[in-house]
């Protein structure tokens, strides 16, 4: 489904990713944890080429992506859903227009069809009463659910989440995690960067601990949370739990 080989990335002198290898199978939920600055966001952003890696290979559904081919990258991005920490909804568009945007502009689906598809996903995240509202009128949790619907409407083969609940008030975290759990249950392939250890324990098939641009430990949630092998992961986990 998704395969990353020997990924390297630096910003100037700062080495952020130092040889990441990762394989995600279909319907697998992989949760990435690690300290701030360890390169989690950069890894996700390299997967859909919001950052260009310096070295390494990325395969999606077996296809090796060529960063020089703009068309190919755009087509790949349309099949990879991305959810950002700060939602990044389009403020000049209503909820339904946000969800329709990729359908009409990228997948070239007629407005009429796009509306139907968009509505389906708005319903899925439980916001049918808000379809005509502008993002400014929504709570953070609602915004993030719209952002998830916007990504889902493209019918992606994998969803990338970069700390989707970190910008939310604590009481709004649950509604977003609920939508994500539902997605996982339906068999969506997901890569999730999060500090929600409860979510990781409940939903993740595999947990990855990143430190200083490297994957230090990989395992089931039980392995990582109950029997961490690496002393850096032990230190990280004891600090946050």
């Amino acid at each position, binding site marked *: 489904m998704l395969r990353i080989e020997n990924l390297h990335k630096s910003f100037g002198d700062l080495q952020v990713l130092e040889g990441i290898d990762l394989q995600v199978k279909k319907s697998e939920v992989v949760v990435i944890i690690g300290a701030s600055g360890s390169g989690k966001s950069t890894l996700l952003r390299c997967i859909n080429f919001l950052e260009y890696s310096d070295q390494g290979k990325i395969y999606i559904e077996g296809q090796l992506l060529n960063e020089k081919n*703009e068309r190919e990258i755009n087509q790949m*991005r*349309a099949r990879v859903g991305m959810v*950002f920490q700060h939602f990044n909804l389009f403020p000049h568009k209503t909820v339904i227009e946000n969800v329709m945007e990729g359908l009409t*502009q990228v*997948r070239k689906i007629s407005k009429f069809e796009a509306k139907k598809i968009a509505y389906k996903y708005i319903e899925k995240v439980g916001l049918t009463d808000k379809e005509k509202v502008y993002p*400014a009128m929504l709570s953070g949790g609602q915004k993030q659910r719209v952002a998830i619907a916007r990504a889902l409407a*493209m019918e992606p083969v994998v969803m990338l989440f970069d700390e989707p609940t970190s910008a939310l008030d604590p009481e709004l975290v649950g509604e977003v995690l609920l939508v994500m759990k539902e997605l996982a249950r339906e068999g969506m392939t997901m890569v999730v960067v999060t500090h929600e250890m409860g979510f990781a324990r409940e939903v993740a098939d595999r947990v990855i601990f990143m430190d200083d641009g490297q994957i230090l430990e990989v395992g089931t949630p039980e392995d990582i949370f109950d029997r961490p092998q690496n002393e850096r992961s032990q230190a990280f986990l004891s600090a946050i739990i």
Partner: protein
Amino acid sequence: MEFINVIIKYIPLFLPAAWMTIQITVLGITIGVLLGLAGAFLRISDKWWVNAIARIYIFVIRGTPLLLQLFIFFYVLRQALSLDSMTAAFLALGLHNGAYITEIFRGSIQSIDHGQMEAARSLGMSYPRAMIRIILPQAFKRSIPPLGNQFIIALKDSSLASAITINEVLLQAQRLAAANYKMLEMLTIAAIFYLFYTSIFTWLVNRLEAWLNVDSK
């Protein structure tokens, strides 16, 4: 009372000049907006030499007086390109305003959160499409207040065209005063026209802003 009567009597004599003021202002602004759009795209390019073209343009225009620019168009380019005086005037105004409007557009485009472009690109949109659909509509809205301000400056700057024989409001006031010795009254009439125009501009800009503010953000 006499003062008011003189003003009322002379206002109609200003109408052709008032029309001239509006024409060179509107044409100058239109050219300025088009140049500003083009300039902003050059300015946000990551190719240094593309960027440099716009920087040099802005450097030259902002670093020299508008009057000098008008003179260049009137005394040099008018002959070279066989333009009429009015064309020379609004081209100079357009070129001048284009530099300022470039910076207005550039600023508003760059003020849009980077996440907007990333969200659009991550849906698979190409850069130009993301610009047109997502960035520019938001940037345009943000540029309305400074743009309105620039329009008012352009209106008042159009009076400098009097120095190159354009018979706009201010030159008309001077000409009439030279004949009737009523300088205060003639200048008052000119002021009335400028205030009238700036009020209309301000009103239009506010309407446009309110209309674009439907998403209340």
